[in-house]
């Protein structure tokens, strides 16, 4: 190789070497990050997808259209205490 009359800026080779090594290693890291994100989404999806049964009448009021409210179920399944305590604590303005 003949004499080279130009030189890169100070530290160029070390910086580029570090960047190149990071780039050739990054696909593996990227895959791990993608896999972790997908797993997190799946877990979150399963969690959100689960039907969370309402344990209080206040919860049913919030999550169900008025015409579909299982009033009979609530009256049968919930104790007087659950029914009225919850209503009183969560939507007092409707009392």
């Amino acid at each position, binding site marked *: *190789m*003949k*004499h*080279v*009359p*130009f*030189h*890169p*800026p100070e530290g*160029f*080779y070390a910086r*580029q*070497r570090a*960047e*190149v*090594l990071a*780039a*050739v*290693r990054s696909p*593996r890291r990227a895959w791990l990050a993608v896999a972790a994100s997908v797993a997190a989404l799946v877990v979150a999806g399963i969690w959100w997808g689960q039907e969370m049964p309402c344990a209080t009448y206040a919860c049913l009021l919030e999550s169900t259209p008025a015409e579909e409210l299982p009033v009979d179920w609530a009256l049968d399944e919930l104790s007087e205490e659950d029914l009225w305590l919850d209503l009183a604590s969560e939507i007092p303005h409707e009392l």
Partner: protein
Amino acid sequence: MAVNQATPIWLHDLQHGRRKAKERAFEAFLDAWHARLYSYIRRMMGNHEDAADVTQETLIQIYRSAERFEGRSAFSTWVFTIASRKALDALEKRNRQRTLDFDEAYPLAHAALAADALFTGDEIERRLHAAVIALPPRQRQVFTLRYFENLPFAAIAELTNLTEGSLKASYHHAVKKITQHVTVPA
């Protein structure tokens, strides 16, 4: 792959090694080739910024496609093939709007080198490199590989897919243009 004295000892790991071994082999490759590739690409591109980008792309490409090197040519020929393709692609993108002819390009290249703080050559070297930069990209490639990198015409023919005869003609044409500017006051 045929192993001969010119085959670097890290080449097998670069091609077939597991992750850690391949990375170590690539570091050995960088020790041997980083500066040489940068110099070649810098001569092709004419300035540091473009050369830095193309060098980076070339190095990453070599890491990713090392296992596809079949040993039918010398390893150096294969490396210069990748570097040349990357450089020619970048030059094509850069020159898409207009390609200057040699006599238009030479004074611009000479002025750019005169203003380039990273160029440390004397006036003769400045004229030589300005003339190289002013050559059309393919001719610049042939001249650089032959004159600066000392590659035999047979290897250049392999990496350019041109015949040795046409390469020799192109090289001598380039030498004629360059000599004119190196020997006559700018």
